[in-house]
């Protein structure tokens, strides 16, 4: 938005610049005071001046004089000088002599009198500028009173040039001034016509015009050929201000339909620059002519509201649905282009108009917010914490953590402590680091869960106190958790930093992995989840490797895989010497894996061939994934790694039996698992609401089936809510998706993660404060523009010292330095959290 404002303002200021660059006589004061002789001899041919004659300042003329003085600057922009002529007492010439003349102002061009204004017509700057320009632009701005006059002018212009027709309720108003100022710039391009007749406004086809407010129309007479028909008109929707008129004329001047043969993301037109949307009509060679007519028709309808471009699909490789025929590009940066399938042109128009309505409301709101934000900016957002973890930890720092269960280790006690217990869990952390401290809190909860568990010691090392131990134990990141087995290896924890996961990991890793099962009873008990008993409350899926004595290679790979997966998976191993009882029962031949899913009761058998350890790990991990899982914050990463699209059933609570059955069928029916079919329980994973809000702006009715191309394109499709969620319906819907026959409800933002806020630019501050620093002289690269110090206005040495003095002064007065500002800083802390609710 601000970028558009910039182009806006810059083009406007360019316009003003053009206006003001008309040479003016340089004078210190804008209102000159001259004697009559001086005045008349100074008049130059072609130059306009507004003169006011006075003997001495009569009290009545005082306010008028003030206004005229105020308007001198505005008039100077148009090359008109304002002069107060002091009549000598005895002067009885034409202008000075008559008492009457002294109540008037005179407009001269050269020494020719153009118009005399009674002072009461020049009541303020608007009226002065409006009236003076009106008088000077006699030819450029026609004043009409009747419809016939208007039509005559219109007819005369047809085929030649366009007309700007303005209605103002009265002359001398701000609107009148705006029209006149526009006429000053555009008068040579378009014919301006002005009226104050309300009836004329009615006659020109406005059914019930609001005659109290000014209106402006752009009449497309240049392209009108039929003399009998009036020129096409486009009313300006906004209030009559100089900026709005300028913008309107600019839009009217833009080509009706732009032909585009490049990536629409890169296209920029006047409309986009002026903050209006751009509608693309997608065309093909075969339908070009018809599309062009459609585009022109739409363009006429949207004139002044949006731009229209004709995009030839043959020339541009578009990665969108073939059925799409319209695209909408909004001026907001970073918003991707929306591709749509629309039935008729009305839809295009409502699309744009509704959007602009919504936007207008939003704009109004935004403006309010912007004001607030500007206040904020002075307070500097940069120093407000916007890291949720750091902020949460600092808000929690006063609370004493229940760390009694956790042994504090030091450089001296580290090794002796490890030797004492069978299994020592060590959290390596840094006491100043937020993530470490967040994990420490979960770790305290783990300690509480595991209180009284024998053979497990929970301990911690603060690497800020004992860097030597941490370096020796190869801890390069904070936090790190390692589990040391007495006299043996150590395992680094690589799971989620959460209480349950860590507890589970510690418990699972107490049992050797894989666990060697000695008897067939143990193996059966293991598959039932009853053996070993200490894990019965933790395990989910049991993996049992069944080997014959001969299959040593597969067994080795399995054992090594066990080492890697230790803590994450429960793995058992059974070597069959006795009559292949297991193999027979589950219809597999060794080497094989048996998988017993928790709660399922069924046991699946998977034959093993010559897998390497890595293959084995990958396979076991894959097999552990559920077919139709409930997706949660904790298990999502495992499914994300499949790099597949997601088919998610959002549900408020448990999934209905019917849907569950159908979805399971659907998931099982795809052996290659081309997508991840899953469901999400909003009660258990409330953040799912956030996902839905992002997809659909509001919370849709549930249950809801959604297809998300997470890894390719990011389109989100919504299963039609009127259809029942059955395997067949979903499959045919998926077919349609693949064929490109469905329109995505939304597309995931492709935006990069940029710095949330700027940093302090110390380099610039240094240069500003100490301009004599030769900092920028050694800069070599073109891509780092050397900032030159600000020019000192006087250019002498005394001003050069100023910046450093300023910094000195600032040093003294700026609050928050040293202890003196502590109270202030503490008070300012309260503002934290006010903003940055957006991530």
């Amino acid at each position: 938005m601000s970028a558009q404002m910039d182009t806006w303002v810059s083009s406007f200021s360019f316009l003003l610049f053009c206006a003001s660059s008309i040479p003016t006589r340089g004078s210190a004061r804008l209102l000159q005071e001259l004697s009559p002789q001086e005045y008349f001899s100074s008049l130059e041919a072609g130059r306009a001046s507004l003169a006011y004659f006075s003997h001495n300042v009569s009290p009545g003329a005082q306010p008028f004089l003030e206004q005229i003085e105020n308007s001198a600057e505005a008039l100077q922009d148009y090359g008109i000088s304002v002069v107060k002529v002091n009549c000598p007492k005895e002067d009885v010439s034409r202008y000075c002599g008559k008492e009457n003349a002294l109540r008037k102002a005179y407009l001269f061009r050269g020494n020719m009198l153009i118009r005399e204004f009674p002072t009461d017509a020049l009541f303020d700057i608007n009226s002065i500028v409006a009236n003076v320009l009106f008088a000077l632009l006699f030819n450029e701005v026609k004043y009409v009173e009747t419809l016939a006059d208007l039509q005559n002018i219109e007819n005369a212009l047809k085929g030649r040039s366009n007309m700007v027709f303005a209605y103002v309720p009265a002359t001398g108003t701000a609107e009148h001034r705006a029209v006149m100022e526009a006429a000053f710039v555009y008068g040579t391009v378009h014919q301006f016509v002005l009226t104050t007749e309300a009836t004329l406004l009615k006659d020109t086809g406005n059914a019930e015009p609001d005659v109290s407010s000014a209106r402006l129309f752009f009449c497309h007479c240049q392209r009108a050929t039929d003399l009998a028909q009036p020129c096409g008109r486009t009313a300006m929707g906004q209030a009559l201000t100089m900026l709005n008129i300028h913008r309107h004329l600019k839009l009217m001047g833009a080509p009706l339909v732009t032909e585009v043969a490049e990536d629409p993301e890169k296209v920029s037109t006047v409309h986009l620059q002026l903050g209006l949307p751009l509608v693309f009509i997608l065309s093909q060679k075969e339908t070009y002519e018809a599309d062009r007519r459609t585009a022109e028709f739409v363009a006429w309808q949207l004139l002044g509201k949006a731009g229209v471009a004709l995009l030839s699909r043959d020339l541009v490789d578009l990665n969108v649905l073939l059925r799409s025929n319209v695209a909408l590009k909004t001026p907001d940066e970073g918003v991707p282009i929306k591709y749509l399938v629309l039935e008729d042109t009305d839809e295009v128009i409502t699309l744009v108009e509704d959007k602009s309505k919504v936007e207008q409301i939003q704009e109004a709101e935004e403006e309010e917010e912007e004001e607030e934000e500007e206040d904020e900016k002075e307070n500097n957002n940069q120093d407000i914490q916007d890291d949720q973890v750091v902020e949460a930890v600092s808000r929690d720092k006063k609370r004493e953590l229940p760390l009694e269960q956790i042994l504090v280790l030091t450089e001296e006690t580290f090794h002796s402590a490890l030797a004492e217990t069978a299994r020592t869990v060590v959290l390596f952390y840094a006491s100043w680091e937020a993530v470490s401290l967040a994990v420490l809190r979960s770790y305290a909860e783990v300690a509480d869960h595991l209180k009284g568990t024998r053979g497990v010691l929970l301990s911690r090392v603060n690497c800020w106190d004992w860097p030597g131990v941490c370096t020796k134990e190869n801890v390069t990141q904070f936090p790190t958790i390692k589990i040391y087995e007495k006299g043996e290896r150590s395992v680094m924890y690589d799971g989620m930093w959460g209480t349950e996961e860590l507890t589970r990991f510690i418990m699972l890793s107490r049992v050797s992995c894989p666990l060697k099962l000695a008897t067939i009873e143990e193996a059966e008990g293991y598959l039932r989840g009853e053996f070993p008993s200490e894990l019965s409350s933790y395990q989910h899926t049991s993996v049992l490797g069944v080997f014959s004595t001969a299959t040593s290679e597969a067994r080795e790979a399995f054992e090594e895989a066990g080492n890697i997966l230790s803590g994450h998976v429960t793995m058992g191993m059974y070597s069959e010497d006795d009559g292949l009882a297991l193999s027979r029962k589950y219809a597999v031949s060794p080497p094989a894996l048996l998988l017993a899913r928790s709660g399922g009761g069924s046991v699946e058998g998977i034959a093993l061939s010559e897998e390497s350890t890595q293959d084995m790990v990958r396979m076991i991990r894959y097999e552990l994934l559920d077919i139709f899982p409930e997706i949660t914050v904790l298990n999502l990463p495992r499914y994300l790694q499949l790099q597949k699209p997601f088919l998610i059933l959002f549900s408020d609570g448990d999934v209905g039996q019917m849907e569950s059955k159908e979805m399971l069928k659907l998931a099982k029916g795809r052996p290659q698992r081309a997508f991840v079919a899953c469901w999400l329980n909003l009660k258990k994973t409330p953040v799912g609401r956030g996902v839905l809000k992002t997809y659909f702006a509001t919370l849709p009715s549930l249950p809801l089936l959604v297809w998300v191309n997470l890894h390719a394109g990011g389109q989100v499709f919504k299963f039609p809510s009127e259809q029942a969620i059955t395997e067949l319906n979903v499959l045919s819907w998926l077919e349609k998706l693949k064929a490109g026959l469905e329109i995505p409800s939304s597309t995931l933002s492709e935006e990069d993660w940029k710095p949330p806020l700027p940093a302090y630019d110390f380099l610039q501050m240094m240069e500003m404060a100490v301009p004599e620093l030769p900092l920028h002289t050694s800069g070599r690269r073109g891509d780092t523009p050397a900032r030159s110090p600000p020019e000192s206005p006087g250019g002498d040495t005394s001003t050069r010292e100023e910046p450093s003095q300023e910094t000195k002064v600032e040093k003294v007065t700026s609050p928050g330095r040293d202890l003196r500002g502590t109270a202030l800083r503490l008070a300012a802390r309260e503002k934290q959290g006010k903003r940055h609710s957006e991530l």
Partner: protein
Amino acid sequence: LGLALYAGSLCAASRAAFLYHDYCVIGAGPSGLQVAYFLQQASRDYVVFERSHAPGSFFALYPRHRKLISINKQYTGKSNSEFNLRHDWNSLLSHDGRLLFRRYSRDFFPKADVMVRYLEDFASLLKLRVQYNTAIVHVTLERDEQAWNGHYFILTDQDRQNYKCSSLLVATGTWVPNVVNFPGSEYVEGYETVSINPEDFSGQAVLILGRGNSAFETAENILGVTNFIHMVSRSRVRLSWATHYVGDLRAINNGLLDTYQLKSLDGLLEGDLEDLAIVKDKKGKLHITLRFYLENRNTSTGIDSITLPQDELDNFATRAPYDRVIRCLGWKFDFSIYNRSLRMMPGKENKKKYPQIKPSYESRGTRGLFVLGTASHSVDFRKSAGGFIHGFRYTTRAVHRLLENRHHGVPWPSTVYPITQLTNSIIKRVNEASGLYQMFSVLADIILLRENATSFEYLEEYPVGVLAELEMQTGRKAPNGLFVVIMEYGRNFSGADKDVFYYNRAVGEAQHAWQSNFLHPVIYYYKHLPTEREMRLRPPEWSLPRPDAVHHIVEDFLTDWTAPNAHILPLRRFLENCLSTDLRNFFAESCFLFAFTRQKLPPFCRQGYVRMQGLVGSEGLRRHAVEAGLLEDYALTDSSGDRAPDTHKESQDPLLGDHVMPVRPLQHLVNAKDE
């Protein structure tokens, strides 16, 4: 006879033969032992030559009054061994916890004898290969294209035994006393030999030449028994607490400043020693006169004919005669043993007591010759601590790392971290690193960015003067830009004539951090490694050329830079803006939301959550984040939508009123640093 002949020829043969070592170190002082330790750890072929029978022979004699002025801080309140080295100025670096100086002395300013004992232990406990009683008297070159540097160094000892070395490490310190020659300088006693018994000075008037720590140390010793002490030197006194240079006059020695300023008869004078002359009268008293008067006199007709300044100017300051004149002018490097071909040149101006070396500590004249220890102080003379144990123990390690890379293909040690650890690794180092802290503006940590800024490589304590040669000197590549982490005092803060106690000298707010005066971390960002030319053209007083961006971490009263909002947050913003990424941490829940709603994830989620190492966070923490408005609680919002944020906003509003109000600095909370 035959036997004698045989023995003689054997002797001759062994004398002609060269004993070869890859590395030869001259001098078993602190820096010689320090480099020996690193060479030993790296299992290199080296030998240390020491002319005395024990290490640290300089400390056996000096300082004469036996008190070291390097601090030996017993307690810092911290157990961090690296941090504690910041306040231990006497220990050498080693892995052995026994070799910490605080285990040798409890004195804050330890005795020099303890240093001698420490150095003996250091050499023997670590089994360093030191060859004692070997004085190297001559060093020359032998050209050989096969040699590492195109030549071998041939060292000759006092017994004419020759040694051949590929690389020569000169750790001889500066031990040759500086002397001035002027008429009457024969009456001057040197610091090396002057009595240290105060009774010898009772009731005497003493003139001391020089104004360094040795001069003041000498004065301190006799301050209570002399009639008066006068001290003459060319330059004004430089106080180390004003210059922030430990080689200048330390407060522990400055008793004479007190007695001078309080008009207790002692005094300081400025004058060029070269212009002086001393004449002895019949009573043995020494009179100060000017060389100029002596030159005008044609014959030596005795003291009476010599003009004294007070003859013309009867209130001449030093008109009172002295009983003794003592020279305390410091030491210089022994240039005498090097053959001309080595081109060991003295430095320029005030650095002429040191040999000329590059910022890599390699001699300007000879490749493969490195100068270590005090003699290498020309690199940072009057700036940093490179001339003192607590500084050169780090520069010596840096030189060793350069050698490892150059001769053995062992690249500079480094650790690779994921980008999410960038802020952490900087904060960790600036808070504990002692090398950065002591060798401020000289040694810097270098962070080399990997492609796409997903990870980085961290190199510690690289000599910043050879930044341009980084790739060649370290064997590491820097194609994607780099950060340089260094510590600096504020520009224009330090100086002999500066008021370092002015009001509001300390900066408290992060946004003014660049004006910080006291030692604080500064991080420079370069998109490309600076070139040699840029290094050369850098502004004077700048240790680095103009960066693409720079960040100052605001000075801290406690030198503890771990405050989340004042230190870490602005640093993170700086790093984020240099790398154009978002380095915030997120709870797993946020990553979950991003995974489903954005095509790209922030680095923290990408490198943590997606790899199944998400930060779940405790319920309490999540609640805090929600209260802070940094995490949305979707469990609350339900269908009624945005009610929760509204109430949240309301609850904040009353507080808003408070902090936008301009608060005048509170007068009762005056700067604690003043007290």
